[in-house]
């Protein structure tokens, strides 16, 4: 069923899709052309999601649907250089293992691969398609999607992505340097805001290991839409640590899908930090289709003003002996809103599943609101599963404890808020990310705590 007004709203995407299809011509393999066709058809049928759909009940994407975005399909000009503007966004630990995307397009001249060991295949997904072997791998993974429940956003990404990353870590290799995928958005005020469609496929072969940093940033006032997909295939016994840091401007829209498929005994640990954007939506889908896989799916959202952030996660235990831990925390101030919807499925036969899920929210303002829904659906009988959600204010006893030591009430509140965020931040294994986030939290708290809390 398609609402008539959606036809008009999707016109710029239809034009872009026609142009892109023409431009790509025969450069792309037939299977991808047909995947794009079917994806775009699905998008045209479904349009953008609306609040009548259960999964979008609390997140109204009308501001995205109504905005006339200009899809970015080829690399566009920018003043950004290695020295100007970029340095501050790159984490020290990843200085020589960074891939920089500007408006969704991989920019080699801004990237650095010196720290990435030989054997790792890394490059633009379009170029990777030129190699028969890589094309086979990419096809194998891309053709598994979309999942039936995927939204119009993810099929639109598949239809339109013009650039992206293919990263393959060969069997048994442990990549020490964190690989940083940095996405910079640049919409200028007064111009048609761009819509960018980054697409990342990460394949970690058996027993390999790597740390991935995926970060999004933009100038303070930039207006644009990011519609990203990051797919990960974590092979048997492979270990992937994945950090996603979203700190885009409060004028930006951010819609992202992270899908991970875990092999036997694979480990996938991810922490998502969400500070930015006017409206952000993150769909996380982790499938454990083989025995003995483990994942931890943690996150922190911290919003203020009229920001809206929505996290939907699905952790799917399909085989026995898998473990999942999830800790998501939220800090809301002003009139901001947050949505957390966490589904944990334990399928028939997935015995000895260990699943824990917690969502805790701290409301700093009377006008902030959070809708949280942890959901546990268990179809096996020998499992250990817990879940819970909490929404609250700062604890009075904790406040009194700090005040009784001479700390004024305002500082005490900020300190407790900082501590609340700290439980997620301190688990991050990369020091410069922790430092940045510490500073960002303190900055959000608008206090002179900065110097006081450094140790």
């Amino acid at each position, binding site marked *: 069923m398609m609402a008539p007004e959606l036809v008009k709203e999707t016109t710029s995407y239809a034009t872009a899709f026609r142009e892109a299809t023409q431009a790509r011509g025969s450069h792309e393999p037939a299977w991808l052309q047909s995947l794009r066709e079917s994806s775009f058809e699905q998008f045209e049928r479904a349009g953008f999601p609306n609040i009548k759909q259960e999964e979008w009940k609390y997140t109204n994407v009308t501001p995205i649907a109504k905005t006339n975005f200009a899809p970015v399909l080829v690399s566009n000009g920018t003043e950004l250089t290695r020295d100007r503007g970029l340095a501050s966004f790159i984490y020290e630990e990843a200085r020589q293992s960074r891939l920089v995307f500007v408006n969704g397009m991989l920019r080699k001249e801004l990237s650095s691969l010196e720290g990435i060991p030989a054997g790792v295949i890394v490059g633009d997904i379009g170029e990777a398609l030129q190699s028969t072997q890589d094309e086979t791998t990419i096809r194998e993974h891309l053709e598994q999607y979309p999942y039936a429940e995927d939204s119009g956003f993810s099929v639109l990404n598949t239809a339109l992505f013009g650039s992206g990353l293919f990263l393959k870590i060969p069997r048994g290799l442990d990549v020490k340097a964190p690989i940083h995928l940095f996405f910079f958005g640049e919409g200028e005020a007064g111009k048609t805001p761009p819509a960018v469609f980054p697409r990342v496929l990460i394949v970690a072969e058996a027993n390999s290991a790597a740390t991935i940093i995926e970060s999004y940033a933009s100038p303070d006032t930039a207006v644009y839409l990011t519609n990203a997909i990051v797919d990960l295939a974590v092979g048997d016994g492979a270990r992937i640590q994945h950090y996603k840091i979203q700190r885009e401007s409060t004028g930006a829209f951010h819609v992202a899908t992270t899908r991970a498929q875990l092999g036997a005994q694979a480990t996938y640990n991810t922490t998502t930090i969400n500070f930015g954007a006017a409206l952000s939506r993150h769909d996380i889908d982790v499938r454990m289709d083989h025995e003995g896989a483990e994942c931890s799916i943690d996150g922190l959202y911290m919003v203020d003003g009229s920001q809206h952030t929505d996290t939907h996660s699905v952790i799917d235990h399909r085989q026995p002996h898998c473990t999942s831990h999830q800790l998501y925390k939220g800090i809301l101030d002003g009139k901001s809103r947050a949505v957390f919807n966490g589904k944990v499925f334990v399928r028939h036969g997935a015995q000895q599943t260990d699943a824990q899920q917690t969502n805790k929210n701290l409301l700093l303002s009377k006008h902030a609101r959070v809708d949280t829904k942890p959901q546990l659906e268990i179809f096996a009988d020998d499992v250990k599963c817990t879940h819970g959600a909490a929404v609250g204010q700062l604890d009075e006893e904790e406040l009194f404890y700090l005040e009784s030591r*001479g700390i*004024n009430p305002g500082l005490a509140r900020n300190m*407790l808020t900082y501590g609340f965020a700290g439980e997620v931040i301190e688990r991050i294994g990369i020091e410069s990310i922790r430092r940045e986030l510490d500073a960002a939290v303190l900055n959000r708290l608008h206090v002179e705590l900065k110097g*006081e809390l450094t140790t």
Partner: protein
Amino acid sequence: MLEIRDLHASVDGNEILKGINLKVNKGEVHAIMGPNGSGKSTLAKVLAGHPSYEVTAGEVIFDGKNLLEMSPDERAREGVFMAFQYPVEIPGVSNAQFLRLAYNQKQKHNGAEELDPLEFKDLLKEKAALVEMEASFMTRSVNEGFSGGEKKRNEILQMAVLDPKLSVLDETDSGLDIDALRIVAEGVNKLHDGDKAVILVTHYQRLLNYITPDFVHVLSAGRIVKEGGKELALELEEKGYDWLKNGNGKGATASSQASK
């Protein structure tokens, strides 16, 4: 230093303190004893300014100022410290961050020099030695995962860092094994001098084997029913509290001397 006059306090409308009078001078150590529910801990919390307790009558003068008019943080900066019976855990904030923030707030209040992290580290190291706490406790979150004894030692560490004029120790001995009790008591003794005062709130006499009080006050049903010197504590240890109830204790023994 501290004068409590006819102090009445309630929690949730129930009157717990029913007219406390107590005077504490510089250099003195006072023990407040009494059975469970007598109001000892309430007195400690009222002095610290806990928001759940409402003072319904009376006054408390600290160093010539009206203590009850001050917020909890002001009281602390003025030099009142309460060691909690149940120290609170603050996840995500390290002990060192917390202590330095508290220390600098007080320094600022006194117009004294604030310390940067490095300078503070030296101070902290010196104070931590007093309560035999290892450096690893400084980077851990405040009280999180600490044992009962570690939490109490951490309270005394805070006392050492903040250097209060008046320390109120609320059942600091409860839940401590003998070694922890010794460490805590020695810490308190080392910090005490002729310019400071200590109020020990305790159920048992045990702590007083290590910290000798100048005066012992016995609380029952919200009133001080008996006062004396350190030997009163021994008598309580021997006889329990029952003989003091219903006002029977007043003048019941010749061996105790009324405090002045």
